[in-house]
C-alpha cells in the first residue's frame, strides 16, 4: 500500500493466519463477511477445504480477541 509507493503510510498492517476447523460451504462466507465488518479488518481469505484463513488487519483498530470471537460465536475452533 502506501509504504510501497514511498509515501510512508501504514502499509497493509498485520497479517495473521489461522487454521479453522468446522467450515462448511455456508459458514465460511458468513465468517468472511463478519470479519470484514470489524473496523480494522481489511482482507480475509478463506480456504474452506483445509481451514486456512488469512486475515490482514490493523491491530490499532481491531484486537485479536475480537477476531477470535467471530470464530467462537459460530462454534468454530481457530488455531494460529
Amino acid at each position, binding site marked *: *500500500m*502506501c*509504504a510501497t*509507493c514511498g*509515501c*510512508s*503510510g*501504514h*502499509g497493509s498492517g498485520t497479517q495473521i493466519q489461522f487454521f479453522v476447523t468446522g467450515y462448511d460451504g455456508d459458514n465460511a462466507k458468513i465468517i468472511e*463477511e463478519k470479519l*470484514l*465488518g470489524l*473496523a480494522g479488518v*481489511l*482482507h480475509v481469505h478463506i480456504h474452506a477445504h483445509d481451514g486456512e484463513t488469512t486475515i490482514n488487519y490493523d491491530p490499532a483498530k481491531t484486537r485479536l480477541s475480537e477476531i477470535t470471537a467471530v470464530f467462537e460465536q459460530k462454534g468454530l475452533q481457530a488455531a494460529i
Partner: protein
Amino acid sequence: MEVPVMENILGSNDKQALQNKEIFDRNGIFVLNLIGSPGSGKTSLLEKTIVSLKNSLKMAVIEGDLFTNKDADRIAGCNVPVIQINTSGGCHLDAMMIKNVIGKLNLAQLDLIIIENVGNLVCPAEFNIGEDNKAVVLSITEGDDKPLKYPLIFKEAATAVLNKIDILSFTNFDMKAARHDITCLNPAVNIIETSCRTDIGIDKWTEWLKNAVQIKQKRINER
C-alpha cells in the same frame, strides 16, 4: 539494524490533523475529505454540490492535485473560494499541507470546506487531514470489485458515492454486489448512487452533506 520510522511520520501527521480539526471546530466548519480515483467524478460532483448548496451554506474548496490548476479553475467558475495545493507528484494530501493553506480562507465566514484529495484510492485513506468525514467516490466504470480491492477507504468513509450510474446499463457493474461488499466492509456507511450528468441522486448527496453540517454546528453551539 535500523528501524523504519513510518509510525513517527504518521504520528506527526495525526497530531497536525488534530490541530487542524480544532481550528475548524472553533470556527464551526464541517470539513469533508473527498477521495476517489482519477476520473471517478470528484470534481463534477463538487461542481454539482456547489450549485446546489452555495445559496444555503457558505462554502470553500481546497483542491489537491499533483500538478496543474485544472480542477481549481473549474471550481473557481462556480464562484466559491478555492485554494489549489499542488503536491508535485505526491500521491495524497497531508495535514501539514492543509495547515499551510487554511490561513488564506476567511474561516469565520464558512460553514463547509470540501477538500478534494489527489485522485487515488489508496494513500489518501491513510492520512487524516483534520476532516470531520471522508467520502469516497467510485464510478461504476471502475468496476464493482474495487471495494474489496481497496478496502481501507471504504472502511474510513462515512459516505460512498457510486457515480456515473446513468451509464450503468452499458457496463457489467454489479450494483448489488458492490453495495453488499461496501456494507460488509463498513456496516454504518451511507451509500448514494449519483449521476452528475443527469443529476440522479445529487439531491440525496447534498441533503446528507447539509445534514452533516447542521449536526456539527448544533453540537458546537451546545458546548
